[in-house]
């Protein structure tokens, strides 16, 4: 099973890399397979990590199980249909009984029902809940950390303490001044109610310079990170080229190059 897996993994890896050459049947196979499998993967995964434990586990916890109650009667009926999802005697996920979780269940079922055109509007409630929740939670967190927190971090001494005037990589007045100027001018770039001309334009220009340095640095970091990932990928391929996997990487690579080369050759023939 592991050797078969290694061969599949190698094929899929190289098939996706082949997109760098051009769009080709190998890539198309890998792409479609990836889309299909991952959709099914996340459907199953979310069901078993969200709906079953966190929703059903709260609605029918094993702690409160009794055969006589009507509520668990429904549960037993469901269990009759799908035992793995509704194991005998309630679900033991350590949750207490939370009837309030009927609300998300109703929202979820409404979401599913919205596939039927006349009930299309039902999805809106779920969307509305999501947006409302996100807005409320984010507004506080982001104002605290991204705005006030960063303002606080920008209030740094520029005179009057025992810091040195200049130190390349340590704290110094010069570096603090850079941070202060950069933050203020950068923020002014995002001031919309004024055209960026004249003196104001000059100030925002400085802001843009800081933004550009920051973009460049990000880009540099990105190059670094992406190369690291390629290193990881190639290390795997090197591992799979070993004899315990029957040299999977090498064989698949050769086969792919031959096939792609052959089709490129044929294309050239037919076009000439």
């Amino acid at each position, binding site marked *: 099973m592991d050797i078969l897996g290694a061969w599949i993994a190698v094929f899929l*890896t190289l098939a996706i890399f082949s997109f760098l050459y051009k769009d080709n049947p190998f890539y198309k196979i890998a792409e479609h397979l990836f889309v299909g499998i991952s959709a099914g993967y996340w459907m199953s995964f979310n069901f078993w990590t969200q709906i079953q434990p966190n929703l059903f586990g709260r609605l029918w916890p094993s702690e409160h199980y009794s055969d006589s109650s009507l509520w668990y009667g429904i549960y037993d009926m469901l269990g009759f249909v799908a035992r793995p999802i509704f194991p005998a005697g309630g679900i033991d996920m350590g949750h207490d009984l939370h009837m309030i979780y009927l609300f998300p269940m109703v*929202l979820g079922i409404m979401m599913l029902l919205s596939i039927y055109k006349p009930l299309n509007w039902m999805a809106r409630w779920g969307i509305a809940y999501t947006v*409302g*929740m996100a807005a409320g*939670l984010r507004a506080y967190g982001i104002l605290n950390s991204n705005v006030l927190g*960063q303002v606080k971090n920008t209030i740094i001494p520029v005179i009057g303490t025992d810091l040195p005037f200049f130190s390349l990589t340590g704290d110094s007045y010069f570096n603090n001044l850079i*941070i202060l100027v950069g933050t203020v001018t950068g923020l002014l770039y995002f001031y919309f109610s004024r055209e960026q001309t004249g003196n104001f334009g000059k100030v925002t220009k400085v802001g843009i*310079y800081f933004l550009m340095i920051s973009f*460049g640095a990000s880009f540099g970091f990105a190059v*670094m990170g992406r190369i690291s990932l390629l290193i990881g990928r190639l290390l795997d391929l090197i591992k799979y080229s070993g004899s315990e996997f029957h040299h999977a990487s090498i064989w698949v690579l050769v086969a792919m190059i031959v096939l792609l080369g052959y089709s490129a050759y044929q294309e050239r023939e037919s076009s000439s």
Partner: protein
Amino acid sequence: MLWKRQIPIMIVSGIGFATLLGWFIDQPTFKSFVDDDATQWFDILAAFAIFLGGLNLFKLQMQKILRKKKGWQYSLFAIGGLIFALLAGFVIKGNPEAAWGSHVTAKGTLFKWMFNYMVAPMQATMFALLAFYVASASYRAFRIRNFEATLLLSSGIIIMIGRVPLGSYISSWFILYLLVLIGGIVVNSFFKNKQYTAIFVGAGIILVSVAGNSMGWPLDEPGIFYLPYLQEWIYRYPNSAGSRSIMIGIGLGIFGTSIRYILGIERSYIGE
């Protein structure tokens, strides 16, 4: 209309206010809703919704196959992958010891096998494609077009080289000589006079050599020309300033937008 418009707007405002105020209210039931349940509900809702998405994917790929649209053969892989993943998720466990529910993470199950040899390698390979793209993007985009682009390029290159071990072998004196040469190019394009350029470059080289000789050519001095130090300075100070201003801007943007949703000023996300 009530069901389709007013109630969704009321849900957004109601939930939005509740989650926002929840940050300030120290009341156990309310607090646990805001801290825990609010996002949990969303996760449950999203877990329901993903089935809707899967159905849409299935429908579109099926249509492609039935109508024999161009490339329909590949859709077979998408449908096959989806069905395979759902089988592994809901029907075939593969490891009798793992219980339903924990089979999505337990060792030795078909689901885990699918993850290890299909999902993970494809995920990682798509990610690794970025190593190539980042190279070609930097090759194309890092052109000295104007001052801003030059800043972007310089900070990118300094970070790229300064952060890897090989970069720490580049003496600051080498960089100084390089700067003298670049200065020469600038002087040349500014004055368009070969004599000036020669004088500038000659004087620069002599100056750097004398200084280097008197200091004994230390690798990392003067520090501002030693790439590992310089990159640290760039990413700690000017880069931080730039990204901080973007951060504050984004923070205000998200805050303002969230408040707009909560107050019902902006409603077009549900088709108003």
